[in-house]
């Protein structure tokens, strides 16, 4: 409030607070509405979503470059570009980057930007906690990648099985960076999930009952429950590995009776829900795109919702299918084989419902629709190979071969990335106010789809011919030469497809056609407000009476709700979430070097911890704060 005069002169905010200035431990609260500091201190879910999205796409490029390096090494037999440990670092960081630093934050970007708009809210339940999640994510992501310049990147694969990652066989700092980085990312994810869980439970507009929620919001809710319940096991497993590595404990030390198999269990108790964390939001996005471009309501809405929730529940009952070759015994293998097969049922239900949605619809083949269709087709291919794995006897042959690599890239690129790119194309006009170029968009889509299938379909063949995962080279007489070269060519085609998509984003951001509020004739609440949305989203909180409420209101001529003359209360920006993130980064760096030099590393870790504690107290004492906005004077979006 101290800066209300400034604000009025720049943005025209009407302030009704006349209290004493809000002072925190660092003086007045940040008040900038534009410029770098306004982004670093923002609590606006839309800006946080945009920052999540941009960082995710940057890491997608980084992870993609790592993938290309792997493919170049494997293009011809006996290649020596990346040998041994360097190859291990490359595929480890490719997997870690793509899952934790690209796909998950891209999903978080959609949670942030779209969920509050779809439930008719002005922000999330805890705006500062939301900023905290973003900055801790950035801290963890940077921390892991610092390892490239500090003696070597993590090299124990994205699953990080000890003893390969244990202190006995991996004495460098590679895995320390991995352990600390993933713990920070876990904190970020759990904090974000607490926030979105509360937001969806508590911040819905009046009348928006659970069974009137858009499917994307439903899938967000299920995903966040999965994150809340699946991240603790991996966090504890990482803590146990950290105790082994940094303080000489024996959790996975066979010489002292430890059992490395336990890591595999904890990892996959997390790891299998994790793959549903990656795919369920995509299913939600597709369930938004298909009805819009089929001009029909979603076919079997309750079935889609319950199937999604059921998939989420079953995600906790199938983890050992990743361990069929570990010698668990017949009963365990049989049980997990059965539960895994059951997953096919709700997934099949969803696929048929999506087809039913399009059946007889007035289809518009826009770029988002093409990506949604690609999701259904490619995810189905990945799903079929998944069912093949559920037959344990077959899986024994496929385990750790390129057949598995083909399977999970079909569900993660053909599935998750297709849906997320479709989501970007679908909500781009809402985020930026401009439509993405359709011609370039369709071209980029076809290059992406062809390149993707060129890269990953032959991997089925390579896998069935016995090519193992994670080998850095192979002999010329194994019979794998042709398809490996083919995959590498395909990987470059795929990379160009993604590059064209990015070029389209930049081009359309600058020169795209102005979208207007509702370019797709949408069905859900986000299309009822301006593009880009004003900082307060809704001038009047909508009253929801139907599923696809905005569509219903348009049909009945009630879509335009006049402003009711009441000022809008919005939370203030804050420095503290960023400072907590910086403190956690410093703490993590200190912990990584703690076994080398206590004299140096301990003060660093304690300093980071102290900074974090200071910022948490500052955060608590400043309170959420608030300013009153007048929508008639408000200049509109801050982004």
């Amino acid at each position, binding site marked *: *409030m101290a800066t209300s005069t400034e604000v009025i002169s720049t943005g025209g905010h009407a302030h*009704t*607070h006349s*209290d*004493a200035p*809000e002072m925190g431990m660092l003086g007045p609260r940040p008040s900038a509405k534009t410029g770098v500091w306004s982004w670093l201190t923002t609590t606006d879910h839309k800006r946080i979503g945009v920052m999540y999205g941009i960082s995710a796409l940057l890491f997608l490029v980084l992870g993609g470059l790592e993938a290309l390096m792997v493919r170049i090494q494997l293009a011809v037999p006996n290649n020596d570009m990346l040998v041994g440990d360097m190859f291990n670092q490359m595929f480890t960081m490719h997997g870690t980057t793509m899952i934790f630093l690209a796909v998950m934050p891209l999903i978080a970007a959609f949670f942030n930007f779209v969920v509050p708009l779809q439930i008719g*809210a002005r922000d999330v*339940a*805890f705006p500062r906690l939301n900023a905290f999640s973003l900055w801790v994510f950035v801290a963890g992501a940077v921390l892991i990648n610092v390892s490239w310049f500090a003696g070597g990147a993590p090299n124990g694969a994205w699953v990080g099985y000890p003893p390969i990652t244990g202190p006995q066989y991996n004495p460098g700092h590679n895995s320390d960076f991995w352990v600390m980085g993933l713990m920070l990312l876990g904190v970020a994810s*759990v904090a974000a*999930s*607490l*926030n979105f*869980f*509360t937001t969806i*439970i*508590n*911040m*819905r507009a*009046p009348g*928006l009952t659970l069974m009137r929620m858009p499917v994307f919001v439903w899938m967000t809710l299920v995903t966040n429950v999965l994150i*809340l*319940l*699946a*991240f*603790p*096991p991996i*966090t*504890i*497993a990482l*803590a*146990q590995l950290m*105790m*082994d590595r940094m*303080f*000489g*404990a*024996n*959790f996975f030390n066979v010489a*002292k*009776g*430890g*059992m490395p198999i*336990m890591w595999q269990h*904890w990892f996959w108790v997390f790891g299998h829900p994790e793959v549903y964390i990656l795919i369920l939001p995509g299913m939600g996005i597709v369930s938004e795109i298909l009805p819009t471009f089929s001009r029909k309501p979603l076919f079997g809405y309750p079935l889609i919702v319950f199937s999604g929730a059921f998939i989420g529940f079953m995600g906790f009952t199938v983890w050992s299918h990743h361990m069929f070759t570990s010698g668990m015994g017949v009963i365990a293998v049989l049980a997990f084989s059965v539960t895994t097969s059951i997953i096919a049922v709700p997934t099949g239900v969803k696929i048929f419902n999506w087809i039913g949605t399009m059946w007889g619809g007035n289809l518009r083949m826009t770029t988002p629709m093409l990506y949604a269709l690609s999701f259904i087709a490619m995810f189905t291919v990945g799903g079929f190979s998944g069912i093949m794995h559920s037959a344990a006897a077959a899986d024994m042959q496929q385990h750790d071969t390129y057949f598995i690599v083909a399977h999970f890239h079909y569900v993660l690129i053909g599935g998750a990335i297709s849906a997320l790119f479709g989501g970007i194309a679908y909500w781009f006009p809402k985020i930026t106010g401009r439509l993405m170029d359709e011609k370039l968009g369709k071209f980029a889509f076809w290059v992406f789809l062809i390149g993707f299938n060129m890269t990953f379909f032959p991997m089925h063949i390579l896998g069935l011919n016995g090519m193992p995962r994670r080998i850095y080279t192979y002999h010329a007489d194994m019979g794998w030469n042709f398809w490996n070269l083919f995959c590498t060519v395909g990987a470059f085609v795929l990379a160009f497809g993604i590059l064209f998509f990015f070029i389209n984003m930049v081009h359309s951001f600058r020169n795209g056609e102005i979208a207007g509020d509702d370019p797709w004739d949408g069905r859900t609440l986000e299309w009822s407000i301006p593009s880009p949305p004003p900082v307060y989203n809704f001038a009047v*909180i909508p009253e929801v009476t139907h599923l696809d409420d905005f569509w219903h209101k348009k049909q009945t001529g009630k879509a335009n709700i006049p402003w*009711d003359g*009441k*000022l809008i*209360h919005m*939370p203030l920006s804050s420095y503290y979430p960023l400072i907590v993130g910086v403190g956690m980064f410093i703490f993590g760096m200190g912990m990584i070097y703690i076994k080398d030099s206590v004299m140096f590393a301990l003060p660093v870790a304690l300093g980071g911890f102290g900074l974090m504690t200071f910022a948490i*107290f500052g955060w*608590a*004492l*400043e*309170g*959420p*704060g*608030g300013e*009153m906005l007048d929508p008639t004077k408000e200049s509109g979006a801050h982004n």
Partner: protein
Amino acid sequence: MSHAATVDQQHPHAEHHHEEHSYTGIPNKKVMMWAFLASDCMFFGTLISTYIIYHGKSLAGPYPAEVLNIPVTTASSFVLLMSSLLMALSVAAINRQDITKFRLWIFLTGVFGAIFLGFQSYEFTEFVSRGVTLQNNLFGSTFYTMTGTHGLHVAIGVFWLFSWFIYSFFGNMKDKATDIEVAGLYWHFVDIVWIVIFTVIYLVEFVGVTS
């Protein structure tokens, strides 16, 4: 939206800005704390499972039955459980806006938590002197990691409670009942987890020995 009016009356530190939106009528902070506790169940579930799986698998001593001291830990457990009673009294006092009583009870809750931590420090020191270390065997690794994580939870709780005690002298406690209740949820949960840990580590160890 009786919003503009209510905000004006509020102190700058007011916590209730968002609560008018609550669809369920339950404050946001409470929903979040329950969700966090569900997540925390999985944290402790993983730690406790690890302890049970590794129980009896240590290749070298000292073994748990040689060092565990049930009378001392019973006393510390009693102190921790009594702190839950004091926490309940704090919540009741803040709901009545009886700030004097609130200060007394929340201070004592924190003190009881600190006494528990004192017992734990004594126990850790005692165990180390008798050769139970993090590095020595699986019992040491699992014991210190699990009870240490629980101790960390208690320590965070003690800081949290003392912070509210200090805040009550210079801050406005009028609309803080929800915050205290949320801190209480956390505190009771940490106590309940201790009942499970106490049973698994201390009581189960001597089943068949004493009977």
